[in-house]
């Protein structure tokens, strides 16, 4: 991954309101142990990532937003590839070094950067 590599994040329909992405969409879930799942944009396109997420994994997504490796590292959030089974494009943004409140603040910064870039792919596009 390069500093300019896009980290693709799927946004659940419940977290897209009036076209705005809620910051909670860029925060690790309790089950994730502080690791936010993303797709490595060097290995998969936004469209293919959405198709994989909704078609293969069977989850819901209202679109694909992205932040770069440089942007996450500027927030003191390291990024690494983490291959899961037949899912080589899987990567994680590591929030574990930060307390819960700091994680929330960082998610707000990431969501703002992603939103400024705009949605890269929407279902049915």
């Amino acid at each position, binding site marked *: 991954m390069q500093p300019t590599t896009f980290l693709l994040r799927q946004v*659940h329909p419940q977290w897209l*309101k009036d076209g705005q992405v*809620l910051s909670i969409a860029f925060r690790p*879930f309790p089950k994730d142990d502080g690791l936010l799942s993303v797709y490595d944009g060097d290995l998969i396109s936004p469209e293919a990532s959405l198709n994989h997420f909704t078609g293969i994994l069977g*989850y819901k997504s209202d679109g694909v937003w992205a932040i770069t490796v440089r942007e996450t590292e500027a*927030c003191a959030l390291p990024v690494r590839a983490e291959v899961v089974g037949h899912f080589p494009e899987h990567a994680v943004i590591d929030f574990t070094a930060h307390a819960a409140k700091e994680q929330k603040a960082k998610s*707000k910064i990431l969501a703002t950067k992603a939103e400024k870039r705009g949605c890269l792919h929407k279902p049915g596009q």
Partner: protein
Amino acid sequence: MKTEFLKPRFTGARFDEHTLPVDVASDLAAYEELVIELAKHLWLSEHPGRERVPRGFEKGFSLHLEGMVEDGSAKPLLSWVVAGALALQGGNNIYFEQSRDLIAECVSASATNHPLPAKFPKDLLDHFNVFGRSLREGEALELPRAAGPAQLTPESRKKLVLDAQRVYSKDVDLTGRVGEIDWEKQTFRLRLEEGAAITAPLPENFSELARQAGGKDRLSVLIRGVGVFDAYDRLQKLAETHHLELLPNQTLAAQIEELAALQDGWLEGQGKAPDKDQLAWATDRLVSSFPEDLPFPHIGPTPEGGLFLEWIQKPWRISAEILLPDHRCELQATNTITAKSDDKDLNLDQAGALPELYTFVRSHLTPA
């Protein structure tokens, strides 16, 4: 003198307890009126050259609701009651019975996509604007008929009315905002949530409520009445206003209430659905106290079954995460340029917590 006239049967979830909701009474009254008007038409058809039915013709017919048939269904018994002297006139009674049977044939034809009986005059189809109007989706009114019951449903009723005219009526609940009020015509413009605006009658008893809601963006109204629709089910206007109720901060309430539809597992198989009673609690607290000067937040669920409120105004993102059922609230305002954050935790069961929440948000939003 009393004679059994009709045992209609109501079907659908509202009738499962074998009782009749009171609004069905208007259907039965409308049915009686249709029977009389059709009987008059039948009599006149058989007496060419006569312009009017005989004096007292309709006085010989009056339907009474006798009670429910005790066979485990929502089946009222309608009896034909005739005053003593008129009972002896007997000769015209056959027209009311013919009328009853022809109505059932007409309903059956509509339900089964057959042509309407030629003897049924098109100008009387307008009566189906009232008869059957209280029926909801999934409900039906069955009229007994020799060849099997005729089913009047919301859809077949609509077809009957549209056979004669371009619009039909049905009961509606509408939510919107009150626009211009025309005091002289006693009407007002109702701006619906979806964006369209319609004209609605404003009965005197609702004038004060309409005045309070007029022009206020955050004060919606719930209107119950009779809507007029075209063949494509597009609402054209409101013909009658029966009920008007103020709904403050409806946009906010709707965002929270929408979350009640979530099921456990909504987020990648693991998200917990918010508890409905807790959502009602949060809706009530926020809607009743939300200040006019604050923009509404965007609201979503948290994976743990709580509420996530976020105000987005560059450079700030301000979140209020309400933990349910704890009623704790974690506030955080982050300047997304400088990364500076302010945090505050509140217990929403404590007096003064909500004003404190609003003050926190307000202090970080740039005045417009």
